[in-house]
């Protein structure tokens, strides 16, 4: 049996989250919320050196067909 690359890519990108993956996403989301609450209570700096700038709203380039953006 042979399959070409496009078939494999289509198969890979067509993957729908399984019940297990959906449950895992829910657990991870709750964990993130808990850790966030804990970090805030501890007064931890959560942003640090992270760039908060919206990467798609930069003023040096343009995205064809996109409306002007504000950050």
């Amino acid at each position: 049996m042979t399959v070409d690359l496009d078939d494999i890519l289509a198969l890979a990108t067509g993957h729908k989250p399984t019940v297990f993956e959906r449950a895992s996403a829910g657990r991870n989301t709750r964990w993130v919320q808990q850790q966030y609450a804990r970090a805030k209570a501890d007064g931890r700096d959560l942003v640090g050196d992270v760039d908060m700038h919206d990467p798609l709203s930069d003023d040096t380039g343009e995205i064809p067909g996109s409306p002007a953006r504000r950050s």
Partner: protein
Amino acid sequence: MTAVEPSVTAAERRLAELDASFEDFCRNNIVAVERFLRSLCGDRELVQEAVQETFITARDKWEEISGYEKPLAWVYKTARYKLMNEQARQRREATAPLDEVPADRLVAPPADSREAQEWLLGCLRRLPERQAAVFALALEGWTDPEIARILGLADNTVRSYKAAVRRRLKRFAEEAGFDPSADDERAHAGSAQGR
């Protein structure tokens, strides 16, 4: 006082709305962001760490980020940044090389979407990080200009990386022995060993 109560209630309502919208966003996207990082790094623990740190930061700034046209673009960019930081930290602490992912090999074509995805992630991890990131984002449906902005690359670079990755993936598929063009090439070349 009664004059204060309405504004407190509005603030609380706003916080609850932010919480709910972040929760939806997180639940709907955390798997895709994790998959993106897994295309760049084989260390699941490191990936998990970077994903969680990213979403915690996103939660902290959700009021601002949720106003972006595509908040997910910021999340991908930040997740990659967090992963690179984690990798650098591990490299400093490690005594042995990290993230040496063995070549992914299949004896048969992927039978389902899960296998195909795992094979693809394994292949992408064998490529230069930026090329893998470009291709992984393209597969998630981001346009070339968006990918360029998220990764800080020129549009032309995105296009050339995508083409380069396709060539490499084709070769990986041939090596795994399930790409029909490989049969043709082997037939013509006599022996494809050592390519």
